[in-house]
């Protein structure tokens, strides 16, 4: 009558069936598992699409306060109007108005052209422009705009220099060289693993959805903890232990159904990015066309599920209450997301901090998704990330097993 290998399968099947039945019947749990992440992805995709796209209906604008009134000042104003990053909100009458508009958040920047700007250029002196800036505007945007203003001012200065040289050498056409040339064109060419110029420039949705997908997948810790702690409080875990169901079997009984549920979550979220976001006016999430790339994408998402569910089981098994699980799991996820480049992209972080992103499994997951979705890599390219995630998930499971074994025979 000893439990055999077949018996272990029968017992596992019973555990899996129970878990799936309980999940299907838990309406609030289903909402937490599927509806919330779907809404999350929808909101994040729509919110991020405009903010990072090259030229869309951004709410960022600038004004010009011309205290000089020279031809050079007007020319600078005209040239800045060609900036496609942000909108021009027109001239401002005085500095008090300019400061009030910026302070009220009505415009992001005001370019202050000081008196004598034209004369300074004519005398080949360095002009002193000022930029009034809204402190809430990201540093990257501010720096980008400042550099553009500096570039246009330099162009004007060059024009004046050539104009003077042209007059001296009696070649007035010299002045028009810069005027006609316009700013240099720089083509951006995305480079992926599948060479041959087939790579398409990734949209903001393409770049951001994987990050938030990973973040949502790791939040399986909340419903899983609720199920686990409920069982402990009702005494069912104790009853199962008395029926000689080992803790390892209990973990396996939860691991497979929740990995499955986590995969369905991922499909729902990708589906929302692919089909629902465009219906709401956002950009559709593009998936790779090739079967190999799709398989690689699925492998990465499966590895993320293994890591997320392993981590969730560890938290659920050590937490003594739902409150503890919510705090440890939720805060743990937020920390992993913050360190792992989910909330703040890795390239924005200071150099000293960037290597630290590698301590977060979410960073490995992001690397895996980026390999497939942005760099168009195949299975081989995503394997290191997948292996790291699976190892993390299994290590978390092993830790859950060992920690729960203490004090139990």
């Amino acid at each position, binding site marked *: 009558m000893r439990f055999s290998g077949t018996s272990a399968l029968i017992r596992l099947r019973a555990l899996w069936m129970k878990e799936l*039945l309980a999940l299907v019947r838990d309406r609030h749990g289903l909402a937490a598992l599927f509806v919330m992440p779907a809404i999350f992805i929808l909101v994040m995709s729509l919110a991020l699409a405009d903010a990072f796209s090259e030229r869309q209906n951004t709410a960022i604008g600038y004004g010009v306060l011309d205290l000089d009134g020279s031809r050079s000042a007007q020319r600078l104003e005209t040239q800045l109007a060609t900036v496609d990053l942000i909108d021009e909100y027109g001239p401002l009458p005085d500095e008090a108005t300019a400061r009030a508009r910026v302070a009220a958040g009505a415009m992001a920047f005001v370019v202050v052209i000081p008196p004598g700007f034209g004369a300074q250029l004519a005398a080949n002196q360095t002009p002193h422009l000022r930029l009034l800036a809204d402190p809430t505007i990201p540093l990257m945007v501010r720096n980008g705009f400042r550099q553009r203003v500096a570039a246009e001012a330099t162009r004007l200065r060059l024009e004046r220099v050539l104009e003077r040289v042209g007059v001296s050498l009696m070649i007035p056409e010299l002045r028009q060289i810069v005027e006609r040339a316009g700013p240099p064109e720089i083509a951006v060419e995305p480079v992926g693993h599948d060479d041959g110029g087939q790579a398409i420039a990734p949209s903001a949705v393409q770049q951001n959805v994987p990050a938030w997908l990973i973040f949502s997948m790791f939040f399986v810790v909340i419903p899983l903890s609720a199920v686990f702690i409920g069982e402990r409080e009702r005494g069912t875990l104790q009853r199962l232990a008395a*029926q*000689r169901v080992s803790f390892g079997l209990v973990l396996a009984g939860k691991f497979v159904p929740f990995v499955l549920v986590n995969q369905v979550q991922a499909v729902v979220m990708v589906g929302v990015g692919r089909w629902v976001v465009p219906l709401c006016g956002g950009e559709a999430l593009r998936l790779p066309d090739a079967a190999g790339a799709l398989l690689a994408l699925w492998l990465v998402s499966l590895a993320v599920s293994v890591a997320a569910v392993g981590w969730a089981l560890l938290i659920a098994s050590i937490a003594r209450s739902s409150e503890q699980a919510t705090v440890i799991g939720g805060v743990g996820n937020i920390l992993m997301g913050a360190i792992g480049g989910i909330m703040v992209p890795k390239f924005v972080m200071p150099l000293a901090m960037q290597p630290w992103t590698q301590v977060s499994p979410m960073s490995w997951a992001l690397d895996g998704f980026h390999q497939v979705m942005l760099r168009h890599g195949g299975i081989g390219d995503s394997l290191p990330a997948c292996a790291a995630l699976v190892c993390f998930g299994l290590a978390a499971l092993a830790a859950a097993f060992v920690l729960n074994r203490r004090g139990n025979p």
Partner: protein
Amino acid sequence: MIRLAHLCYRYRPTTPPALDDVGLEIGRGRIFGLLGPNGAGKTTLISLLAGLLAPQGGEITIAGTPLPQWRAAQPRAMALVPQDHAFYPSLTVRENLAFFAGVQGLAGHARRRNQDEALAFAQLEAVAGRRAGELSGGLRRRLNLAIGLTGAPDILLLDEPTVGVDPQSRHFLLEAVRRFAAAGHTVIYTSHYMEEVEALCAEVAIMDHGKVLVAGALAEVTRSAAAGLGLTLTRPLPEALAAAWRERFATLTLAGNLVRWPEFALDELGALLAELAAAGVGVERVDYGAANLEQVFMRLTHHSLRD
């Protein structure tokens, strides 16, 4: 025969032992009542028997075989019915039974047979399709018991199985336990309801502070503690009379309105009653000779509150 010898268990090195050199023998096919106030060590003992804890000292043997080997050889032969409603409220009664039979390695015909037998035993057929979370308190208790029977065990550990149920459900549960034992199975039954244990159990053990205070056949336990006199007064004994009686009777115990002499010569009763009447204290009840289980329990555990 279940034999517990010199069992010791301590949850932390700095706390008093939960079990301290406990020894018991429980005959096969008996209903054995395990009594004790909160914190006496009953749950620890049940946990050791169920294999949820490992003894730190001593040994449990069943039919001469150490418990771990006995359980490994016949994993379904012992079942625990915990005090909590240890099942899944979102699953139906039948699904719960199927699940708990399944995790014990039962499949196909064997599972269906055990499931149906457990349903019939607890008379749950009419609610088999209802979700467990929708059942009344009595039906939940019956389901809790039925789940314990899905593995067709030989030994059943029942931890407070009638808490919070109405008299009808309690009567049904007690009858069910009797039927189970009548089929030759062993039941270890913990309860705070003394009349229940007295009505059900042929053998009892009373525990306190991790030790067994008395154990044996119910009649022996009640008889062994029955020689004294107990008076239940209308009010606590006046201080002067209490001091005088303490001087005369060295073994006298006073607790509220209760006065007890462990050994008492009956010819002194008249004089005592006269002294009480003179002090204006009425007598509500006189106990002499055979004691009931509750009296034995209260006497052995010294009437004091534990929580």
